[in-house]
């Protein structure tokens, strides 16, 4: 078996060739126009566009569509490749949602490690006042890189959970559009590679938000950054479209919307945001990109050109913030809603009680998604936009607390009086609730205009944001990894190591997030490589040190988890079909899940969360007549 029978190897060759072809195309065009042959920015930009296409052609994600344009039918291939070892399907285009879900998850964890490593580097720099080893430019690129890579990682993690679980939870054989599903995943690979590559051609030093005018004048790395984001955005859009159609069209008879497993509601709400809002980050970055490339002055205040607009001002950077946050605020709900769905999904299993207020949880996800579209202006209280916008945005933001509170009370109600089993997934769920509570309680302080003024752009925001991301995504994601690991591999992870991971990571994270908020209140600004050690009565340095140590402890915990999984994926104790005694459909079939998941169409025979109700079940996987 040669290396190039792996799709990803062909894809990387395709990406390299695409880059070269794109650069060549630029040079030839420039020569034909009589311009100077080489200009770095257009060459890299066109090269990067072609490199994405090159990767997709190389990996084979577009094969079927290219056949169809010629009128050739391509039946869907199921199962592992006939002439190659079974593991190779994870490195090539495969249309099975379970393979794609694992691909998403693994690529997401890889990016999580890259983003975490970057964070460890600049946390080390921050442990002491003064500049030790990072230059200012590199420091700025690193914080932006940490932000954007983590966003990619989270989107991939969300995609992984949704793709693997949704068809299983609703008893469908696969997603509605398997080819689009594969394409959606493979967009991520060239996209994240471009993002990493951009570090080597100058980086991008205005943070992940890429505000103009800085981003419009920054290094060339910005163009690659934008293209990387376009690729991930396309993946988000096609992925969410696929999930919505799957959820709406492929449920079995008897599974009404309010009888779906609750995670499906979270994915539904998330997908609605992803489908629509993602366009806005695309369009805002595209505008900066064309402003850099051909001087279209969307955000250039100098754009007053005497001839055509003697009276009118130029572009307006504040417009960028409106467009950008119209995506990037709802984006945090894209990150946390699936995580909150995982919490709601797992709590009844480990409390052995029905989910408290199913409909309220389902609708609160939808409410968060809808309200999430109306709050973007709270990122801009000090941007200089029209004063009268502040108060409405403050109130709409505070409104988010209501559906979120519904979830908290429902979680408490679910656990109340339950027979709680403290297995590792449940511990991470409890950790998630505690951490998300810290994030939630620090939110209104930032949403309220007068308290936001002094805290804006301080480390308090960083602390708040990390608490929401860890509580809303990282902890539930780890809970999901531990919970479904036996379903994916058929093996059990090591419970002791899992618990050690939890008891290292959770207190460490409390220290980290509260420490970040603390240094913020002392006056620490975001995105600054150095600080005055006299801040906070000379306390700030020890606080920073504590945050750095906590960061390393979290990283150690994550490595422990990965080692645990790596160790047990092949040789661990056989887990059995349903180690958690769950009622959910995916646990009623063998582990690991067979190629076609369900041998017979699923029949819904009861409510999803009636734990404790004797002789009841949610679904029946037996063929009618058997039971």
């Amino acid at each position: 078996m040669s290396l190039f029978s792996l799709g990803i190897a062909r894809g990387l060759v395709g990406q390299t060739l695409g880059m070269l072809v794109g650069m060549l195309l630029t040079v030839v065009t420039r020569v034909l126009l009589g311009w100077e042959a080489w200009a770095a920015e257009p060459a890299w930009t066109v090269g990067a566009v072609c490199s994405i296409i090159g990767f997709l052609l190389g990996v084979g994600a577009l094969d079927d569509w290219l056949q169809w344009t010629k009128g050739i039918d391509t039946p869907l291939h199921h199962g592992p490749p006939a002439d190659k070892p079974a593991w190779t399907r994870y490195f090539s285009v495969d249309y099975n949602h379970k393979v794609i879900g694992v691909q998403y998850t693994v690529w997401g964890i890889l990016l999580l490690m890259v983003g975490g490593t970057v964070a460890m580097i600049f946390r080390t720099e921050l442990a002491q006042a003064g500049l030790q080893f990072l230059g200012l430019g590199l420091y700025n690129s690193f914080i932006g890189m940490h932000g954007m890579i983590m966003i990619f990682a989270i989107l991939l993690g969300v995609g992984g959970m949704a793709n693997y679980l949704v068809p299983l939870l609703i008893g469908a054989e696969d997603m509605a559009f398997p080819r689009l599903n594969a394409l959606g995943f493979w967009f991520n690979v060239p996209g994240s590679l471009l993002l990493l590559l951009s570090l080597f051609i100058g980086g991008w030093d205005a943070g992940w938000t890429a505000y103009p005018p800085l981003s419009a004048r920054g290094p060339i790395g910005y163009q690659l950054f934008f293209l990387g984001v376009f690729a991930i955005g396309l993946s988000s859009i096609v992925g969410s479209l696929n999930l919505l159609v799957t959820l709406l069209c492929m449920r079995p008879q008897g599974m009404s919307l309010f009888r779906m497993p609750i995670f499906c509601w979270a994915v539904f709400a998330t997908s609605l945001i992803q489908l629509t809002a993602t366009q806005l980050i695309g369009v805002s970055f595209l505008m900066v990109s064309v402003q850099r490339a051909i001087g279209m002055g969307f955000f250039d205040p100098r754009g007053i050109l005497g001839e055509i607009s003697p009276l009118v001002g130029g572009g307006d950077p504040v417009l960028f913030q409106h467009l950008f946050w119209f995506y990037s605020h709802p984006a945090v709900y894209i990150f946390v809603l699936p995580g909150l769905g995982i919490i709601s999904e797992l709590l009844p299993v480990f409390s052995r009680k029905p989910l408290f207020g199913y409909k309220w949880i389902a609708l609160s996800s939808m409410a968060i998604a809808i309200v999430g579209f109306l709050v973007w202006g709270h990122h801009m209280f000090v941007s200089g936009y029209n004063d009268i916008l502040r108060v409405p945005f403050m109130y709409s933001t505070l409104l988010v607390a209501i559906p979120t509170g519904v979830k908290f009370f429902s979680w408490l109600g679910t656990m109340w009086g339950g027979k709680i089993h403290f297995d590792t997934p449940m511990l991470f769920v409890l950790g998630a609730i505690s951490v998300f509570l810290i994030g939630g309680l620090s939110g209104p302080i930032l949403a309220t205009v007068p308290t936001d003024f002094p805290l804006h752009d301080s480390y308090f925001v960083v602390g708040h944001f990390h608490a929401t991301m860890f509580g809303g995504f990282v902890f539930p994601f780890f809970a999901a990894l531990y919970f479904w690991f036996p379903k994916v591999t058929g093996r059990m992870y090591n419970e002791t190591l899992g618990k050690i991971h939890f008891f290292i990571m959770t207190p460490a994270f409390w220290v980290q997030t509260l420490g970040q908020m603390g240094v913020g209140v002392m006056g620490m600004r975001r995105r600054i490589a150095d600080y005055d050690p006299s801040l906070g009565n000379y306390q700030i340095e020890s606080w920073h040190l504590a945050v750095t140590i906590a960061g390393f402890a979290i990283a150690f915990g994550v490595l422990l988890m990965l080692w645990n999984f790596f160790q047990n994926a092949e040789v661990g104790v056989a887990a059995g079909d349903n180690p958690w005694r769950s009622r959910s459909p995916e646990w009623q079939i063998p582990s690991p899940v067979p190629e076609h998941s369900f041998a017979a169409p699923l029949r819904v025979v009861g409510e999803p969360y009636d734990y404790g109700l004797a002789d009841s079940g949610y679904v029946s996987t037996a063929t009618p007549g058997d039971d």
Partner: protein
Amino acid sequence: MSAIAIGHAEEQDHGHAHEIDLATYQENTRRNRLGMWLFFASEAFLFLALLATRFYLWRGPHGEIVRPDLGQTAGLVVTVILLLSSYFMNRAEVSIANNKRTDFLISLLITAVLGTAFLVGVVVWEWGMFPSLVEGHIKPTDGVFGAVVFGMTGMHALHVLSGVVLILNVWWLGRKGHFSSERHWGVEACAIYWHYVDLVWIFFYPALYLIGETIGAGH
């Protein structure tokens, strides 16, 4: 963008002569149709963002809505051409549904020609891509006016271009005998995509050419 459109247009299409039975085809079409409309919902946010940009940036000194002096003839002519093309697209879809293959193919071809005419009108006449032929009205570097005009017409033109490619692909497949009155999702997808792009222009045209006071003279 066009990859997605083609994806939907072609999803499960050429099964017309194959094993998949009509019920499966119809079920697939139902899913494809929903997917296509969700794709439109997504695209709507892109176009709304561009419209919002136009009304945000094109303001006079007292906050009044303004617009640059673009070529009114050019704008009106290309708009009429695009509206006409939508009629022929509809005719193509109705024809294949009634198994009138000749009408179907001719209507598709007329749509593609009109779509191309629209593109030429925008790129040559309005943009002035070839100054030796026609002097354009505005340049992309002309402040916010140039930026928004080229941003909006450019994004729309990209969609028209992908639509024309799609139509020609469907026409070519139709000539080879694909599609029937019962199985023509590819044609339907192509048609609703074309109407959608047309509808976007119905919002863009007044925003660019009609609403607000004219400021400054064109080139």
